[in-house]
C-alpha cells in the first residue's frame, strides 16, 4: 500500500472541513472581533466630516471605499503607528536589517569573498530572514546556576532600551515619537541604561567569560559616555536648546559638522566604542573571552540582543545625522503632489474617481525622510567600514584613549563652540 | 614529462658500510676534549660528520653536561628522547644538544646518552627508574623531560614540575612508549 492517505474516507474529510470552519467561527467571534474592537477603541479615532469615527464607521469602509483613505490617514497619524511603524520601531528595524545585509555584503567584497548568496533570488537578500528563523527555532539554553529572572529579562530590556532610544530621533519635520524639550538629556539618560543591562546580564549568567566581558563592557561604555556627552555640549551651546527637532531646524543654513568637526570626530569614535564595534569590540573579543557577555546567550535571546545592538547602531547613526549633519535638511527633490488629483480626481479612461483625503503625507515629510535616510545610511557605512580594516585594541589602550585623548578633544570642541558663540558668529542672534 | 616507470632507477638497498676513513677533525677534537677531561667515565659511541654521541653513566651526567655547556659552548637541548631496551633491562635517555651562540657549533648536534635501570612492573616516580634532571644545566629540557617521564616512566630527580604533559591525567596504564605496551591489533 503505497498511497498517500491509506485511510482516506470522504466523510472524515468533510467532517474535518466542517470542524475547522466551526472552530474558526467560534474563535473569531469569541476572540477576534473583541480584539479588533478593543484595538479600535484604544486608538485615538479621528473626526471625519464632523462625526467621530467609531469602530462601526471604521468597519463601514469596507462598503464605502471613499472612507478608506481617510481611515488609513487617521491611522498614519495615530500614536500607535508612530511608535510601532514609521519613525519608531518598524522603520528602525527595517534599516537595521538593511544594515546587517549591507554589512555582510560589504565585508565580503572587502575580503574578496561573495558573502550571502543563495538565500533569496537576489544576492542572498533573504539570508537574514533565514538566520532569524534559525535563531527562533533553536533551543534556549540557560546555565544551571544562572539568575534566571534577570537572565531572561536582560535581552528584552536591551531591545526595549534601544527602542526607547530610537523613539527620540526626529526623522522628518514633526515626525518623531517623543518630541521632548529635554530630548538630548533623555538620550544621555537612555544611553546610561546600556552598561547596567550589560553588567546585569553578564553577572546573572554566573559564568566567568560573560563576567569578564560584562566588566569590560561596563568600563568601556562608562568611560566613553563622558566624551560622548561632552562632545555634544558644543551643539547645545550653539543652539541653546536640548530639543532634537529644534536642533535640526537650527541647521537649515549650515551643518554643525562645518563648525564643530572635532566634536563630530570625538562623537563618532565614542559611538564606535558604545556600539562595541571593531576596533572597540573588546566585550565580545572571541579569541580572548569566547563571546564576552553574549557567551551564554542562545537562540532567540541572542537574536534579541543582536536586534537591540543593531537598533542602537541605527539610533546612534541617526543621532549623528541629527546633531551634525542637519537631520532632514536638504534640497527639495521630491516632486509636489499633483494638485489636479485633489481638485479633479483621477481620470482612468471614461471614469473619473474623486478620492477624498489625499494627499496622505506632505511633500516636506517625504523629502525629509529621504534625506534623513540617505545621511543615516552614509553614517552607518562609515561605522561598518572599520570592521574590515582594523584589528581589535586592548582594554588599557581603549581606556587611555577615552580618558586622556577624547575628553581633551571634547573640551577643545567646547571652547570652539564658546568662541563661536561669544564672537557672535553662531547662536541666538548670530551672524549666520 | 618522462614516464614515471622509466624515471625510477634500479639500485640495491644496502646498509651503510662502516667506512674506515679518518674521523672528521672538528668533531674529533670535541670528543677528545671530553675524553681528556673525564677519561673512562665517558664512552664516545661514534663521531660522524656534525654528530657526536657520548654515553655516560647516570652518576656522571651532571658533571659531563656542565662541562659540555661551559667548556664546549652547547647551550640548548633540541630534544630528549627515551628509548626502551627491555633486553638490557635499561631505558636510555638521549639529550640532543645544540648551540646557537657559537657559530662553529651551529652544524653540530651532540647526543648525550645515559641509561636508567628498568623495572618490569613500573610504578613511575616510585621505582628505581630515576635519572638526575638536567634542567638546572639546560633550562630548555623542562618540557622534554616531562614528556619523557610520562612516556617511559623515567623520573627526573630535581625536576621542579614532574607532572603529566600529553597523556590524560587519569592515565593508569603502562608508560606507553615502553616496548611492553602493545598497540591493539598489532
Amino acid at each position: 500500500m503505497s498511497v498517500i492517505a491509506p485511510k482516506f474516507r470522504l466523510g472524515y474529510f468533510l467532517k474535518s472541513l466542517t470542524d475547522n470552519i466551526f472552530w474558526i467561527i467560534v474563535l473569531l467571534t469569541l476572540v477576534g472581533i473583541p480584539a479588533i474592537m478593543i484595538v479600535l477603541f484604544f486608538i485615538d479615532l479621528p473626526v471625519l466630516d464632523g462625526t467621530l469615527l467609531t469602530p462601526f464607521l471604521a468597519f463601514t469602509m469596507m462598503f464605502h471605499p471613499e472612507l478608506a483613505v481617510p481611515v488609513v490617514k487617521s491611522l498614519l497619524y495615530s500614536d500607535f503607528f508612530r511608535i510601532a511603524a514609521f519613525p519608531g520601531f518598524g522603520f528602525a528595524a527595517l534599516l537595521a536589517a538593511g544594515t546587517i545585509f549591507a554589512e555582510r555584503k560589504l565585508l565580503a567584497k572587502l575580503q574578496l569573498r561573495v558573502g550571502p548568496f543563495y538565500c533569496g533570488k537576489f544576492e542572498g537578500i533573504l539570508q537574514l530572514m533565514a538566520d532569524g528563523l534559525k535563531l527562533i527555532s533553536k533551543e534556549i539554553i540557560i546555565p544551571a546556576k544562572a539568575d534566571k529572572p534577570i537572565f531572561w529579562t536582560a535581552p528584552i530590556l536591551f531591545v526595549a532600551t534601544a527602542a526607547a532610544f530610537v523613539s527620540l530621533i526626529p526623522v522628518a519635520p514633526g515626525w518623531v515619537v517623543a518630541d521632548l524639550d529635554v530630548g538630548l538629556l533623555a538620550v544621555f539618560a537612555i544611553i546610561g541604561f546600556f552598561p547596567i543591562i550589560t553588567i546585569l546580564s553578564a553577572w546573572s549568567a554566573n559564568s566567568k567569560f560573560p563576567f569578564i566581558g560584562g566588566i569590560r563592557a561596563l568600563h568601556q561604555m562608562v568611560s566613553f559616555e563622558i566624551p560622548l556627552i561632552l562632545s555634544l555640549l558644543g551643539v547645545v551651546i550653539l543652539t541653546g536648546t536640548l530639543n532634537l527637532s529644534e536642533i535640526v531646524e537650527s541647521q537649515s543654513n549650515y551643518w554643525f559638522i562645518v563648525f564643530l568637526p572635532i566634536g563630530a570626530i570625538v562623537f563618532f569614535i565614542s559611538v564606535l566604542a558604545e556600539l562595541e564595534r571593531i576596533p572597540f569590540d573588546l566585550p565580545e573579543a572571541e579569541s580572548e573571552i569566547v563571546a564576552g557577555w553574549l557567551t551564554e546567550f542562545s537562540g532567540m535571546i541572542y537574536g534579541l540582543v543582536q536586534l537591540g545592538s543593531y537598533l542602537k547602531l541605527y539610533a546612534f547613526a541617526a543621532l549623528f545625522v541629527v546633531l551634525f549633519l542637519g537631520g532632514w535638511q536638504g534640497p527639495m527633490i521630491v516632486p509636489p503632489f499633483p494638485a489636479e488629483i485633489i481638485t479633479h480626481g483621477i481620470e482612468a479612461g471614461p471614469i473619473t474617481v474623486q478620492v477624498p483625503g489625499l494627499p496622505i503625507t506632505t511633500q516636506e515629510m517625504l523629502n525629509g525622510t529621504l534625506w534623513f535616510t540617505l545621511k543615516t545610511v552614509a553614517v552607518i557605512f562609515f561605522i561598518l567600514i572599520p570592521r574590515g580594516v582594523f584589528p581589535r585594541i586592548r582594554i588599557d589602550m581603549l581606556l587611555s584613549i577615552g580618558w586622556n585623548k577624547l575628553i581633551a578633544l571634547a573640551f577643545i570642541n567646547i571652547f570652539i563652540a564658546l568662541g563661536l558663540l561669544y564672537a557672535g558668529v553662531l547662536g541666538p542672534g548670530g551672524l549666520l | 614529462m618522462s614516464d614515471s616507470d622509466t624515471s625510477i632507477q634500479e639500485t640495491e638497498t644496502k646498509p651503510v658500510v662502516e667506512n674506515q676513513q679518518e674521523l672528521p677533525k672538528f668533531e674529533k677534537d670535541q670528543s677528545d676534549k671530553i675524553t681528556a677531561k673525564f677519561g673512562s667515565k665517558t664512552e664516545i659511541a661514534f663521531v660522524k660528520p656534525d654528530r657526536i654521541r657520548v654515553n655516560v653513566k647516570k652518576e656522571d651526567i651532571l658533571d659531563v653536561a656542565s662541562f659540555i655547556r661551559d667548556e664546549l659552548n652547547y647551550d640548548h637541548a633540541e630534544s630528549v628522547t627515551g628509548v626502551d631496551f627491555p633486553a638490557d633491562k635499561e631505558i636510555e635517555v638521549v639529550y640532543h644538544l645544540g648551540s646557537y651562540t657559537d657559530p662553529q657549533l651551529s652544524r653540530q648536534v651532540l647526543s648525550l646518552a645515559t641509561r636508567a635501570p628498568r623495572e618490569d612492573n613500573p610504578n613511575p616516580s616510585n621505582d628505581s627508574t630515576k635519572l638526575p634532571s638536567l634542567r638546572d644545566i639546560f633550562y630548555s629540557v623542562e618540557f622534554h623531560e616531562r614528556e619523557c617521564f610520562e612516556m617511559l616512566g623515567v623520573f627526573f630527580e630535581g625536576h621542579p614540575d614532574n607532572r603529566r604533559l600529553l597523556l590524560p591525567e587519569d592515565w593508569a596504564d603502562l608508560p606507553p612508549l615502553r616496548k611492553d605496551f602493545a598497540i591493539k591489533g598489532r
Partner: protein
Amino acid sequence: MTARLPPGLQLEKVDDRIMTLNVGPQHPGSGHMRLIIQVDGDRIVSCDPDPGYVHRGEEKMAEYRNYITNIPHLERPVIHDSCNILYPYCLGVEELLGLEVSERAKYVRVIASELNRFTYTLYWLAIYGIFLGHSTMFMWPAGDRELAIDLLEKLTGARVTHSYFVPGGVRNDLPANFEDVCLRQINYLEKRLKAYADIFYDNPILIARTEKTGVLSREDAIRLGTTGTVLRASGVDYDVRTKEPYDVYDELDVHTNVLKNGDSYDRSKTPWLDMLESCNIIRQALEKMPKSGSVRVKLKPNPKGGNDEVYKRVESGRGSLGAYIVSRSKPEPYRVKLSVGSFRNLICMPYLLKGEKLGNMPAVYWSLNYWPVEADR
C-alpha cells in the same frame, strides 16, 4: 569529606582575588590545547599550558610499521606542512639505508617544502589575524593559500596530506608545465604578500597592540631553546637551511630574516618575511633544477636499516624539525622521535604570558608559531 580523585588530579585552591580561566580546549582562542590561566584583574598571574588533547602516539605507531608505511601517518601532525615534517624522516632513512637521491629530486623536494611553508604560514597568518580581531586578515591569506594548495595538488595529487616525500626521492615527477604555473602563481603570491603589509603589518593599531608585548630577549630565547621564527625574531641568526644546509640548500642563496625586538610584532612578522624569502628560493630552484632525470630510487620491499641511529634536522615553518631514528636491523625502526618546533616553543608560553594582560594572550600565544597538533604528535 574528601572526594576520591583519579591519580594525577588534584583539587585547586580557590582564591578570592585570583580567577582561573580554562582557555581551551573548547575556546575560540585556543587551538587543540588548554591554557590554564590565572588572572588577577586583567593581569595574568600564571599560565600552565596543558597540551595533549590531540596526542595520537605517532612515535609509538612508527615502531610497528616499516620505513615506507610510516610515511602517511608521520605527516599527520602538521597536515599543512606535511612535506616538511616528512623531510627529516626521509633524510634519516636515506642515511640509514644508504640511498642516494638524484639531483632533480632534491630540487623538487626544495620546491615542495617551500610551497608547504606557504600553505602552513598563510594558515597560521589567517588565524593570527582573526585572533587579533582582524577579519580581513583571516580571509585574505585563507583565500590566497588556495593558490599554493593548487600548486601542491598539481604536484602531488592531494591538497593537504601529500605523502610526497619518500626515502630515496619524491613519489612522482613534476607534472607537465608545472614550472610555468608555479612561477606565475609565486609571482602573484609575492604581490599579495606585499599587500598584507598595507593592511596588517603597517596597521597602527596592530603595531600599538603587539609591540613590546611578550618580549623574549635574545638570552632567554637561547636559554629556553626556542627555535624557528621565535628565535629569529629575538635576534639570533639561526636557520637550519643556512647553518646546516640539507639537500640543495647550499647551492641556493637563502637569506635569513632576523629581527631584534623579540616582541609579538616581530614574531608575527618573521614568518611573513620567510614567505617572501620562500618566493626567492622557489624561483632559484626552478631555474637551477635539472630539466630531466629520475626523481626516485626504487627500494626493495621491507628494507632493513643497520644497527645505527641518525638525527636529521630541517627548517620547517615552525622552526627546526628533527627526526631521531634508532634502527636495530629490522624493517621497522626501533624508535622514531620527532623533535618539533612547536613543542620546543611551548616552554615560552608560561614564561611570556606571566604578567601580560589578558587581552595580549591571543597575540602572544599565536605569535609563538605554535601548532598544537604538531606539539602533541
